């Protein structure tokens, strides 16, 4: 035991290295604090009495759920719920339809002897490279009578060529033997896609769905384009938050609301990130998988 207590091969790390290690940890911790302080402050704002706003650092003071009550059951509660519902519909439809459509298209294109493969790929890739700007899309939605409707946001987001490329690359790497075996067993091409290819590509499908969900939930650029601020019944939640940041500063009738503007904003924002926080563990898994992948390679 005594012999292996000190490893003779281990080189004593120099002072510089020790200093750098310490500095490294210190810098990372500072960076983490810069990230976490605003988040904690904003969480505590949502649960605090507005009288203590300026004293908040990391934890709530004067615990109250008043801001949440105002958002969820106050005068404007129906607007919040409507926006929430809109966001759920938009996110679910975009995630399911977009990924299904792109995965389906990627399947035949992943075969090396797919007819007109090069031409079809160019057809898709061109749309990634060039767009004529926002006016033509706006006019298209105007013509289809889709302005001020959530369908405009959904339809514009379904085509996702980068996911198509992602799926295609993944399908190309799948072993062809399994498909051959299934074909010998009499599986039709459609059965093969849904019962063999899709189950085999669940990891890639999962990460594509995850990014679709985050993107659809968080983006409000297309809502700003297609939906006016007055068409409240079609606002997604991110757009609601965007308007809230500014709007509550202007409307100042109720003194309690005036004092608690920041608390109300924080509560609404906290409510809107709950779904993201729910699927965030997936990111952790993603990071962990990345780590194991790296360690296998290394």
């Amino acid at each position, binding site marked *: 035991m005594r012999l292996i207590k000190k490893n003779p091969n281990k080189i004593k790390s120099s002072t510089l290295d020790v200093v750098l290690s310490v500095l490294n940890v210190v810098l990372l911790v500072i960076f983490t604090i810069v*990230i976490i302080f605003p988040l904690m*402050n*904003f969480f505590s704002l949502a649960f605090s009495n507005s009288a203590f706003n300026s004293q908040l650092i990391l934890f709530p003071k004067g615990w109250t759920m008043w801001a949440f009550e105002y958002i969820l059951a106050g005068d404007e509660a129906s607007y919040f719920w409507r926006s929430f519902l809109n966001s759920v519909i938009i996110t679910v439809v975009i995630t399911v339809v977009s990924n299904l459509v792109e995965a389906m298209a990627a399947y*035949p294109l992943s075969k090396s002897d797919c007819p007109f493969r090069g031409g079809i790929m160019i057809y898709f890739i061109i749309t990634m490279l060039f767009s004529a*700007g926002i006016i033509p899309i706006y006019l298209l939605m105007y013509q289809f009578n889709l302005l001020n409707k959530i369908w405009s946001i959904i*339809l514009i987001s379904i085509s996702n060529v980068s996911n198509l490329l992602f799926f295609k690359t993944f399908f190309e790497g799948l072993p062809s033997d399994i498909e051959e075996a299934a074909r010998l067993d009499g599986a039709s091409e459609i059965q093969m896609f849904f019962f063999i290819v899709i189950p085999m590509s669940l990891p890639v499908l999962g990460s594509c769905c995850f990014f679709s969900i985050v993107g659809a939930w968080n983006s409000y650029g297309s809502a700003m384009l297609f939906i006016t601020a007055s068409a409240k019944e079609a606002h997604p939640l991110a757009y609601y938050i965007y308007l809230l940041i500014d709007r509550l500063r202007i409307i100042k009738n109720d003194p309690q609301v005036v004092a608690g503007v*920041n608390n109300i904003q924080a509560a609404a*924002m906290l409510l809107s990130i709950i779904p993201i926080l729910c699927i965030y563990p997936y990111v952790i898994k993603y*990071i962990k998988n990345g780590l194991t992948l*790296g360690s296998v390679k290394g």
Partner: protein
Amino acid sequence: MKEDKILQASAAEEGTALVGAEAENATRKQERTDSLYVEPKYWKLQMKRVKKYRKVLWFILPAAMFTLIFSYIPMLGLLFSFKGADFNLIHGTVLSNLFSGEWTFRNYLDIFVDNSFYAAVGNTLLINVIKLLICFPLSIIIAVQLADLKNQTLSKTILIIICLPNFLSWAIVIGIWSGILDSQGGALNELFVRLGFIDADYFLMGKNEWFKFFVIFLSAWKGAGWGSIMFYAAIMAIDKSFYESATLEGANKLQKTWYLTIPAIMSTIALMLVLNISGMMAAGFEQIYTMMQLNADFETTQITLDTYLYTISVVNRTNIPFATALGVFNGLIALILMLVGNAITTKTLHRSLW
């Protein structure tokens, strides 16, 4: 196919050896026989493949339809950029308006005499260049630092925390920061006032002189952690034995980072750099437009290209053909940047951007 190419090449060589019309005739004859020989075979082959895949080929159709309607038809919308300034949608459909009235190229010329356009391009490039100089190296530094941590739990915890802001929407990120910098009771604002950095009742995010700073600071706050993931994965994939031998040779940490880590992840760095430069004409529309709303006395000289485009086409909507022309012009520059970026990556990294 290879044989065909060799044949053609040798024919071309012969052609250069021969002189004048005779040589041209010879090559043309060669080409003609080649095409006559290849063409039916190509179609036959494709038809055979269509037959083979007839049951799954329709899988492409839904995606192709969505692409056609929501990408290609709007591309035809660039025709609106050739209409006169009197274009409007008060009467009739979009199509009937398109085919009435005169055609003009003036809108594209107007772009170059528009002062706001130059200001917008300047601001967009400035913001993106500073982002490239600050946020991009910051991601690499964080990745290097994280990879240096011995404690896996600590590095994972830090990673999970610093990635979180990337999954919040811009409205929330800006809402959080405007909350803690709020002139009435924002925690950070209070601290700054107490330290004497700023006067009381001074909202930092609502000031023009701080606008660009916050654009860059917030994109670093939101994106730097997530941006480091790529580099972190690349560093973790480096063979550990390199580091061991470097340690045996007596290299210190800085040397190991500079001579080992950075060269090993150079291809990732180059790829991300090219991707960043390809997106140079967009400066984050949602972020900047939301920040503009917080700024009561926003100066239009601070505008970026995409917010300018949005302002003239959706908010003001005075001259739709001009706004379309600007959009098309912007799209063309973006296209050129993408093609150049792709050419660079395929040449140097043997990897296509798409």
